C-alpha cells in the first residue's frame, strides 16, 4: 500500500466530513457584508468531532487542522486561487530542481516570547522525516534528503529526486513549533496534558479531543491583530443539532463540507450561509482488470445511466456541478490560463444521462444481459448511498443489478486499498494542492495500481510516459500531457466522473468572514484572524 495515497484519501475524506476554511485574498466568493473595526469578545465554532492532537505530525486530518492551524505559523500558505503565498517564510526559491530555500521572518515570536528561528523551522520540517516521530505527514517528505538551517534566517531543503509537488508541502505540513518545547515533551506533545508551543495568532487555553478546544488571542503575534479575542471550538456531532445550534445563535459558525446538507442550510435572521465551488470530485471507479468492467462498453453503459443533473439538484440543491473529468477545473492553479482550462473542458464529452445509448452500449458488450455488482459506500456518507440507489434504479432496465452496501468507513477504506476484486466503487476525493496532474498521478499508472490509489488498475505505456514527463516537463508540455490524459480517461472510462461538490460556511450575522472563502484556503490556512464583526 502506498502510504501517500492512503494519506491523501484519508485527508480527502476527512476534509469531506469537515472541511475547509477560507483565507487570504484572491478571486473567490465574498463573504457578504463588510467588516467593521472593533473587537469580538468570543466566538463559538462548531466542529463535528474534536481535534485528535495539536501536534500536526499526529493529526493529519481536517478536524484537527481546523484547530491547530490557528496556533501555528506555517512557512507558506495557499491563497484563494491556490497560489503559494508567504507565511513564516517571507520568500522562497528553487535554485535547482533538488533544492528549496526558505527565508524566515525575523520578527516572529513564540507564545513564551522566544524568537522563532530557522532552526525551529528546520526542526519542525525534519520531524516529518523522522521515523521515530512516525509523522502522518511523512508521505509528503519521501523525496526529502535533508532539512537544515543554513543561516540564521534560512532553511534549505534538499531532495534526493525531483518532486514537482514538493513545492506545496510547506503550505500543507509547514507548521513551525518550538524545538526546545517539543524536545522537552517527547511523550505528550500535542496532548491535552503536554499541549504545544507555537507562534500563531492564538494560543491554547484548553484542549480535549472529546469536547473541543479554547484558544485565546496571542498578543505578540507578528500579523495584524485578530478581532476575535477568544475562540471556542465546540464538538456538535449530530448534523441536525449543529444546524439548529447555529440557527439559534448558540453557536456562531461552522464549516459545511457535506454537500447533501446544502438544502437544509438556509439563510436566517441570525444566520448567513455561503457556498462556494470546491474541487472535491466524486466519481465511479471500474476495475478494468476483471469482468465485467474489463469491457469498455460496460463502463460506458454504467456511466450513461447516471442522472448527474437530476442528482445534483435532488441531493445537493444545485450546490454541485456535473463533472466532465475527475480532474476539477479548480485544480489547474497557475499551470494554465482560465481560457485554456475552459477550452480543455469544453473539448471533453458531455456526461449525459442517456438510457437508450446505455442499453445500446451494453448490447455491444460481452455482458449484454447484464450482471450483478455490489458497491460499498461509507456509512458516514449517506449521500453516496443515495447516488447508488438512484443508479440502481437506472441500471435495472439494463439487467444490471446493483446493490449498494453500507459499510463502516474503515472497511470502505480497507477495501479500496486491498486492491482485490474492486469491481465498481464510488469515491469522493479532494485534491490538496492545485496541480491538474495530481489526481491522474494518483489514480493511473502501474505503480499506483500495485500499491496505491489506482482503483481501476488502468494503465497503458502512453499513460506511463505521460505521467513520467509530468515530473520534469515544462509548462506547455505539462498542459498538453494533462489534456491527453484527460482525453484517454474520457475515451476509456476507467473512472466515470460524477460531480464536483460545493463547500459551505455558516456564520452568525454579527460576524463576517473578511476574506476569500475557497477550498484552497483549507485546513492549511489561518482562517480565524479573518473573522471580524459585521458592519451595522
Amino acid at each position, binding site marked *: 500500500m502506498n502510504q501517500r495515497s492512503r494519506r491523501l484519501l484519508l485527508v480527502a475524506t476527512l476534509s469531506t466530513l469537515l472541511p475547509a476554511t477560507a483565507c487570504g485574498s484572491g478571486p473567490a466568493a465574498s463573504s457578504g457584508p463588510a467588516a467593521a473595526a472593533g473587537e469580538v469578545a468570543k466566538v463559538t465554532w462548531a466542529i463535528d468531532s474534536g481535534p485528535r492532537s495539536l501536534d500536526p505530525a499526529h493529526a493529519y486530518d481536517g478536524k484537527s487542522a481546523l484547530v491547530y492551524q490557528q496556533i501555528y505559523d506555517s512557512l507558506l500558505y495557499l491563497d484563494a486561487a491556490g497560489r503559494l503565498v508567504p507565511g513564516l517564510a517571507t520568500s522562497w526559491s528553487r535554485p535547482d530542481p533538488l533544492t528549496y530555500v526558505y527565508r524566515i521572518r525575523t520578527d516572529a515570536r513564540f507564545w513564551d516570547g522566544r524568537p522563532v528561528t530557522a532552526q525551529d523551522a528546520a526542526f519542525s520540517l525534519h520531524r516529518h522525516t523522522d521515523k521515530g516521530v512516525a509523522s502522518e505527514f511523512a508521505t509528503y517528505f519521501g523525496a526529502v534528503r535533508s532539512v537544515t538551517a543554513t543561516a540564521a534566517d534560512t532553511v534549505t531543503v534538499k531532495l534526493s529526486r525531483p518532486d514537482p509537488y514538493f513545492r506545496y508541502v510547506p503550505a500543507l505540513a509547514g507548521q513551525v513549533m518550538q524545538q526546545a518545547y517539543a524536545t522537552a515533551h517527547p511523550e505528550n506533545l500535542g496532548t491535552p496534558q503536554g499541549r504545544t508551543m507555537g507562534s500563531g495568532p492564538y494560543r491554547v487555553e484548553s484542549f480535549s479531543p472529546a469536547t473541543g478546544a479554547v484558544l485565546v488571542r496571542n498578543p505578540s503575534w507578528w500579523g495584524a491583530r485578530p478581532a476575535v479575542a477568544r475562540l471556542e471550538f465546540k464538538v456538535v456531532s449530530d*448534523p*441536525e443539532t449543529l444546524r439548529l445550534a447555529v440557527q439559534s445563535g448558540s453557536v456562531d459558525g461552522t464549516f459545511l463540507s457535506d454537500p*447533501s*446538507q446544502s*438544502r*437544509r442550510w438556509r439563510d436566517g435572521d441570525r444566520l448567513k450561509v455561503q457556498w462556494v465551488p470546491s474541487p472535491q470530485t466524486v466519481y465511479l471507479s471500474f476495475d478494468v482488470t476483471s469482468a465485467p468492467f474489463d469491457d469498455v462498453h460496460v463502463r460506458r453503459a454504467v456511466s450513461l445511466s447516471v*442522472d448527474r443533473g*437530476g*442528482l445534483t*439538484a*435532488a*441531493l445537493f440543491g444545485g450546490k454541485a456541478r456535473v463533472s466532465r473529468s475527475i480532474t476539477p477545473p479548480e485544480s489547474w492553479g497557475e499551470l494554465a490560463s482560465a481560457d485554456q482550462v475552459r477550452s480543455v473542458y469544453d473539448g471533453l464529452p458531455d456526461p449525459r444521462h442517456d438510457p437508450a445509448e446505455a442499453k445500446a452500449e451494453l448490447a455491444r458488450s460481452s455482458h449484454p444481459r447484464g450482471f450483478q455488482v455490489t458497491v460499498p*459506500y461509507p*456509512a458516514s456518507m*449517506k449521500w453516496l*448511498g*443515495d447516488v*447508488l*440507489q*438512484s443508479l*440502481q*434504479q437506472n441500471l435495472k432496465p439494463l439487467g444490471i443489478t446493483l*446493490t*449498494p*452496501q*453500507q459499510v*463502516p468507513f474503515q472497511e470502505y477504506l480497507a477495501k479500496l486499498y486491498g486492491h482485490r476484486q474492486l469491481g465498481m466503487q464510488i469515491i469522493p476525493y479532494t485534491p490538496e494542492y492545485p496541480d491538474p496532474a495530481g489526481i491522474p498521478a494518483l489514480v493511473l499508472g502501474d505503480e499506483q495500481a500495485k500499491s496505491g490509489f489506482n482503483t481501476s488498475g488502468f494503465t497503458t505505456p502512453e499513460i506511463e510516459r505521460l505521467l513520467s514527463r509530468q515530473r520534469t516537463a515544462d509548462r506547455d508540455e505539462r498542459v498538453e500531457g494533462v489534456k491527453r490524459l484527460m482525453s484517454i480517461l474520457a475515451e476509456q472510462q476507467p473512472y466515470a466522473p460524477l460531480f464536483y461538490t460545493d463547500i459551505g460556511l455558516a456564520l452568525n450575522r454579527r460576524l463576517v468572514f473578511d476574506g476569500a472563502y475557497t477550498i484552497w484556503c483549507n485546513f492549511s490556512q489561518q482562517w480565524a484572524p479573518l473573522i471580524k464583526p459585521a458592519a451595522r
Partner: protein
Amino acid sequence: MRARAGDLAAAASLVTVGVFAVLIVAGGRLAPADPQRGDLAASALGPGAGHPLGTDELGRDILSRLLAGTQDAIVGPLAVALATTLIATALGLLAGYRGGWADAVVMRCADFAHSLPVGLLTIVVVGVIGGGYPMALVTLTVLAIPADTRVVRGVVLAQRGLPYLEAAQVLGLRRTRIAIVHLLPNVAPTVVANCLLTFVYALVSLSALSFLGLGSPAGSPDWGRMLFENRTLLDLNPWASITPALLIVLAAVSMTVLGDRLLDRALDRSRT
C-alpha cells in the same frame, strides 16, 4: 369501567392488526407508485397531489414505500417471535416439567445468556460479522430465547403440582405425552401472550438496527431504514420520517395491548 376500556383498546388493536395483516398480503399491490422508482425532479416534496405523504430525497413516494414495507416490517419480527416461542417453549417445558439436571443445565445457560446486553450484542454481531437482515433475525431469536424460556418454565412450575398432572402420571402416561397433550394447552395462553410481546421486542429491535444502518439493505422500504434515511428531511417533508415512526409505534402498541389482554385472560382463567 376499566375492563370496558381494556376491551375497547383490545378491539381497536385487533382491528389494527387486521389492517396490518391485509397490508402484509396486499401492501405492495395497493401502493400507488413503484416504491423503489424515484423521480429526482420531485425530490423531498411535501404532501400533495400524486404523493399523499410526499416524497423522499430521491423522489420516491412515501406512501408507496410504507405500504410495500409492511411485509418486511411485520414478517421479520413475526418470524423471530415464532421461532423464539417454539424453542423457548420446548426448553421451558423440559426445564420446568422434567426438572433435575435438565432444569439445571437449561436455566444456567439461560441465566448466562440473560446477563448479556441484548441490544449491544445484536449491534456488535450484525455490525461486525455482517449478514444483514437474516443475521439480525437469527441474533435476535437467539438472544430472546433465554427470557422466554424463563417465563415458560415459571408457568410450568406453577402447573406441576396440580391434580390433573398427577392424575396423568398415575395413569402411566409418558412424560412427553403429558407435557405436550396435557401441560402445553394449559400454559398456551401465557405462551401466546408472551409471543406477542416477543414480536414487539423484535419489531422495535429490528427497526433500531435499521435506523443504525444495520440489518435491512440501503434503499429498502423498511420502516426503520426509512426513519433513518429520511430523518434529515424533517424541515422539507417531515412525513417522510414521522409516518414510519408512527407505524412502528402503532404496530408495537397494538401487539402489546393484545398480548396484555391475552395474559389477563389467562390469569383470570387460572384463578377460576
